């Protein structure tokens, strides 16, 4: 087990270094250079030269990459946001916890809804409810998050006045959690993103488990249909969902940009959206880096959980 975790951890570190390289390269492919992007089209040659010198842009590329990695590892330096007039890391760290809360609650809610839905579809397979849920999952799967969010706002906020269309504001995570009325719609929007695919996956995973030999054995020894379903089959059917969760994380974190900008939720996604409108490229790359770190950490945890749940993984090469 320790060996598995260690190997998996090493893999994650290699990926993180690769991501650093890509983020570094992205900062260098800006047409006209980073200096033009930061100082505007009317900057003088001297200003640009000074900017390039200060940011080591006049050094060889390899040296720059080394300086970049060095700054990132020793002081978590991701550059400077010209819009916020602060270090990128500082700006992001203030908002990251709120995004993690939103994404965390949303994902949890998605699981809580999707797993029973999938089971329901198996129990009632090829009956009307199964068809209705299947069609719904197709529609939800095809619906852009912003459209779904806008429709939720339209019905549940503007028409019914049940929930606020404006996400909770405030400096800390505690402030956010103390205003559940504003949190409902953003959380549900994030969750809806994955409910469709999770429940669909749960359905097929359960169906497949039910064809396994051990399930037939359980039936043969006289276990009732409920016992077979919930005790014997469910446990094995739900394990692959952990992997699916790990694989879905990039999509969920990416969806935070849309959800947060839609509801004006003060997290990292909104920050990325504002960075788009301000063409604040260092900040945009910083949020990308953090979002990637979050997904890598998430899938690492998912893989370890998988190994805990399914011993076959641990011992395989």
């Amino acid at each position, binding site marked *: 087990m320790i060996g598995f975790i260690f190997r998996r951890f090493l893999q994650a570190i*290699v*990926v993180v270094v*690769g*991501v650093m390289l*890509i983020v570094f390269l*992205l900062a260098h*492919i800006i*047409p006209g250079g980073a200096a033009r992007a930061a100082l505007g089209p009317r900057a003088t040659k001297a200003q640009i030269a000074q900017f390039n010198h200060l940011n080591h842009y006049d050094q060889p590329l390899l040296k720059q990459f080394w300086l970049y990695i060095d700054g990132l590892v020793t002081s978590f330096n991701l550059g400077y946001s010209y819009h916020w007039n602060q270090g990128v890391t500082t700006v992001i760290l203030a908002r990251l916890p709120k995004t993690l809360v939103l994404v965390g609650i949303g994902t949890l809610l998605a699981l809580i809804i999707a797993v029973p839905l999938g089971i329901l579809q198996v129990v009632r397979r090829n009956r009307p409810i199964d068809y209705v849920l299947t069609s719904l999952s*197709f529609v939800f*799967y*095809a*619906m*852009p*998050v*912003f*459209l779904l969010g*806008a*429709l939720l*706002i*339209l019905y549940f906020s503007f028409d019914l006045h049940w929930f606020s*269309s404006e996400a909770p504001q405030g400096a800390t995570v505690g402030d956010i959690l103390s205003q559940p009325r504003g949190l409902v719609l953003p959380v549900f929007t994030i969750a809806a*993103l994955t409910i469709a*695919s999770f429940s*669909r*996956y749960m359905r*097929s*995973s359960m*169906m*497949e488990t039910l064809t396994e030999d051990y399930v037939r054995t359980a039936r043969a020894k006289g276990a009732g249909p409920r016992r077979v379903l919930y005790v014997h089959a469910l446990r094995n059917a739900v394990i*692959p969902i952990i*992997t*699916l969760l*790990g*694989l*879905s994380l*990039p*999509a*969920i*974190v*990416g*969806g935070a*940009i*849309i959800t947060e*900008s*839609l509801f004006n939720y003060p997290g990292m996604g909104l920050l*990325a959206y504002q960075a*788009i409108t301000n063409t604040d*490229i260092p900040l*945009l*790359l910083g949020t*990308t880096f953090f*979002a*990637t770190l979050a997904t*890598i950490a998430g899938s690492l945890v998912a*893989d370890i959980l*998988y190994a805990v749940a399914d011993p*076959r*993984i641990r*011992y*395989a090469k």
Partner: protein
Amino acid sequence: MPSNRDRDASGSPWSGRALAEEAVPGSAIPPSSSLVADALPPDGVMPLGGEAVSTGSLLRQIVSVFAENKLAVIGLVVIVGMVLFCFVGPFFYHTDQFNAQAALQNSTQNTGPAKGHPLGTDSSGFDILGRIMYGGRNSLIVGFAAAFAATLWGVLYGAVSGFFGGWVDAVMMRSVDVLLSIPQLFLLIVLAVIFKTSLGLLIIVIAFVSWLVPARLIRGETLTLRVREYVQAVKVMGGSRARIVLRHIIPNTVGTIVVNATFQVADAILLIAYLGFLGLGLPAPQTDWGSMLNTVVSDAGNGYWWKIYPVGAAIVLVVVAFNFVGDALRDALEVRLQRR
């Protein structure tokens, strides 16, 4: 969600098992055999008069399985209908979609459905029905072109990586892993901000974030194909590596390619919608379906429902249709399922 990377291995979230195989290398589930490799005789080396299944009847078989699936036929009809609507429709329904001032003189802003404007007008006075055609044209062009480019590059990359194996494969696939770990939407946005968007750049940028999944899929298939006897035979006969990859390996992965490409179109249409919503779509007065929903929340607040539902429905319809077709194609191409 945009990136649907949960489709990773199987090409679709709707099919279960392949995903676990790809994601968990040590999984105890045996790898599924490739989709058509079992049935399609490899190019040129088919034993004469041997196999009972000829290519013609297989194709007919595939078409008939596909046609049996009602959802797939509906999907196909929707796609064809939407393409006609967007590309041919403007010839019958003339609207000005470029000159905002002229549009304003002939109509008013944000008016609901009325005579002359069956779906109302938008904030620039453009007719919405005409705009859905025009925006849809751009969305569909980007969707098809980006999916095509991503599939082409992904297939070549995956086949080369799988065929060479060893450290070449390791380096090539670790780079794919790295790019896949970056949330697709973030990567897409960064690229779209750096390269100011135009139709051509939009296609390239979307293709750039979409080729990773086909690359992985084809690499996996190539790994199983390259040790087959017929590939050995080509080697013995002195076939070059390029010939083996291009003429003998890639043609045998065509089932996976086609199925994945179908889902790629759906995903690309969603991705361009996301970019449009974030204000990174085509610059006005050009438009696409996502850009038309750019102000969706304030439109909802103002009660301009005609600016939301028709274009929203168009996106959902087309994406659902492509998913239907993709699912049916997979079923039709999966030989094992044909005898079910």
